[in-house]
């Protein structure tokens, strides 16, 4: 198992290199210019040229890439053009805020999906199945930014129960685990968990239903095993498929949702990327995207290892 994990870890090196190249190329392919975004429209050309030289944008793209790689490998992502602060600090702070929200959304979405999906698969009543399927369909169909706005209108504007934006109370900086901050998390968490809830509910339902039709389940029932223990066997068999999808969904959530974070003014990576895109803050864009891509790769690796632990056939394959 250790060798398998190490081998997979080694595979990450060329993938990470490819990702860095792709990130750099995409960021530079986008229309607009990094310097024009930070100077007023009528800034003199001498100023624009001076800034272009200062930030190294006058160099050919391959040179810019290698300079970026050098500082990145040294553990420094450079300095934000927009704020002048180290990119590492900018991305780090935002990433932690996104992680908090992503974990909450994962907990809500995955636990509900397992319960609802299993219930639908087991349900003898067509009504239960239809209700669950409808919830799943709504989850994947309703645009989550629209849902976010509706939630804000209902629970913040009309009922006044929950705050519509921000990370926490005005007199506290950063996120903390207390009731006040949890209140601020409720609406973004609900909005963010809808898509993974829909996707996972459908996955769990179909996987469990398929496993329930397998012969070993009939054999277990014939042996007189009680329903609870049979359910454990079914869930264990459904786990590899569900874990793979959960991994992808968790990765999407950790990537941050630009729309949800913008609607709730939640200062995470999505909000940071949104701001960096409009400012053409290339160092922040590159740094944030690279960190997210790397995290996504690590998450996939973790899911693969867990899958292998749950189902050794995967390793053999």
């Amino acid at each position, binding site marked *: 198992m250790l060798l398998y994990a190490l081998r997979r870890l080694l595979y990450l090196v060329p993938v990470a290199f490819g990702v860095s190249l792709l990130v750099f190329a995409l960021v530079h392919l986008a*229309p607009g210019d990094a310097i024009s*975004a930070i100077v007023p429209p009528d800034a003199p050309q001498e100023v624009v040229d001076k*800034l272009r030289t200062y930030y190294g944008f006058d160099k050919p793209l391959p040179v810019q890439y290698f300079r970026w790689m050098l500082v990145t490998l040294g553990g420094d992502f450079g300095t934000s053009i927009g704020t*002048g602060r180290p990119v590492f600090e900018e991305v780090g702070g935002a990433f932690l805020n996104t992680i908090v929200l992503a974990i909450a959304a994962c907990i809500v979405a995955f636990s509900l999906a397992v319960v609802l999906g299993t219930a639908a698969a087991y349900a003898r009543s067509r009504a239960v199945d239809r209700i669950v399927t409808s919830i799943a369909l709504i989850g994947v169909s309703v645009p989550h930014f629209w849902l976010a706005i509706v939630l804000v209108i209902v629970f913040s*504007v009309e009922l006044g129960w929950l705050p519509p934006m921000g990370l926490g109370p005005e007199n506290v*900086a950063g996120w903390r685990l207390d009731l006040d901050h949890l209140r601020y998390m409720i609406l973004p968490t609900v909005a963010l968990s809808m898509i993974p809830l829909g996707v996972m509910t459908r996955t769990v339902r179909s996987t469990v239903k398929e496993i329930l039709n397998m012969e070993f389940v009939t054999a277990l029932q014939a042996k007189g095993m009680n329903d609870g223990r049979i359910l454990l066997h079914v869930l264990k068999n459904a786990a590899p498929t569900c874990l793979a999808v959960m991994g992808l969904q968790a990765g999407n959530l950790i990537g941050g949702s630009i729309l949800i974070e913008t609607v709730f003014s939640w200062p995470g990576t999505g909000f940071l990327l949104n*701001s960096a895109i409009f400012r053409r803050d290339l160092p922040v864009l590159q740094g944030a995207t690279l960190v997210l891509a790397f995290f996504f790769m690590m998450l996939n690796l973790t899911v693969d290892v867990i899958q292998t632990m749950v189902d050794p056939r995967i390793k053999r394959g």
Partner: protein
Amino acid sequence: MLKRLRVLLAGAGVLAASTIPAFSQGTLRIGMTAADVPLTTGQPDQGFEGYRFAGYTIYDALVNWDLSKADVLADIKPGLATEWKPVEGNPKKWVFTLRKGVKFHDGTDFNADVVIWNLDKLLNDKSPQFDPKQIAQARGRIPTLIGYRKIDDYAVELETRVVNALFPYDMSYIFYSSPANWEKQGKDWAKVGLNPVGTGPFKVDRVVPRERMELSRFDGYWDKARVPKLDKLLLFPMPEAATRTAALLSGQVDWIEVPAPDALPRLKQGGMNIVTNKYPHNWAYQPSMVEGSPWTDLRVRKAANLAIDRAGIKKLVGDMAIESKGHVYPGHPWFGSPTFDIKYDPEAAKKLLKEAGYGPNNKPKIKIAISTSGSGQMLPLPMNEYVQENLNAVGFDCTFEVMEWNALVTFGFQPVTGEAAKKAGTNAINISRAFPDPYSGFTRLMHGDYVPPKGANWGILKDAKLDEMIDKVHNSFDKAEQTKALQAVHSYAVDQALWIWVVHDLNPRAMSPKVKGFVQSQSWFQDLTPISMQ
């Protein structure tokens, strides 16, 4: 069951309400449109919203703006300088007499050394305090400043490249940060940004990137009439209009910038005050005036100006605009007396196009570079589509080159003869412009010497008569004479239909009835010092 649910919900509501933090009466919370706290080191980014909230609050300029009145156009007044005048016999040199007794928030003194240190910060790339981020914001505001020297502790001499009677306006955009604080922060501007120190009416207590900026009253402010009434001022970046609306309606903030037009009825219904006023904003089209462009024909430009149904556009933006009658709005001191009446007259537009030799089989082809959003652009897509219908209805063949805001700004860095415009085939551009001062309003946009990259005369308008008139403004040191010269420039620009003008924004902001004492000036900047919370 339903009754139980109602009781439960009501209980939850009371619980939630009881946990909303209480604020003192003197705290004002504002939702900005920016996605981040503007730069706080001295020269703010985020356009004029940055100047409004992280400029004139924390800092002062040598020349400040008088933002105390709503019924007249905001003009400059003494700030950190008590007076200024050109040197006799050499109008390219100006002497600024500095105000004595001004303290920074850190208790250090403001004097001539501070002025020189701050100008070095922007203009001397050999100085240790040189900051490329600040020069990026500031250099375009002081295009003619080439030299500076200390005369004594409270006087400095500034030198301009050309004779420029408008130079005091330029100096209203340059702020002065504390050299002692820069030393204290390890000579690191990024750290200064988190702990800025200026001389302004508010001092910064905390900057939390992308979350908020907290300011409080500076009791030692030099202008005792403008010591803030508020205890605290909290600024939140909220780029999404729906979020700002919800935050205001739910009581999380007391004031929001630029509410969405379709949210105005709901805000009014929620008891909020919608505050508007005229201000120097121009939503218009800047045409190509190079050979081969249909816009070189005065009749075509006049036809376009007469084809636009401005009342319809005003309705489209929820009445948050005034219909253009020229480059500046009627009642503005520079309006003058143009003879060409800009109005909606499609029949006259059709007639003019016919006179110019155009017809159904030979339509003037117009391609305009527009953006999907952007600072001051109002609702660019629906507004442009509305105009397109109007123009096509009288016989134009109007299409768009649509791009993202930043791409459009970059596009505007090259004139119409540049590669970008040639490739796109555009012969007009739609970038909202501010005209807080004559240079921003006319010189950089219409003077023949200010073709990009030197200025923003994108369409390469070359009109010797107009250039002479604008030069006269720059050479008029007497205020009345300067205003008269500006009126002549404006009248000429309108009579020659040099642009296609559509509307001026009304600068809407919504606020809770608890906000008292705010006077919305005719400016992009606003004074927050007279405000109190009820």
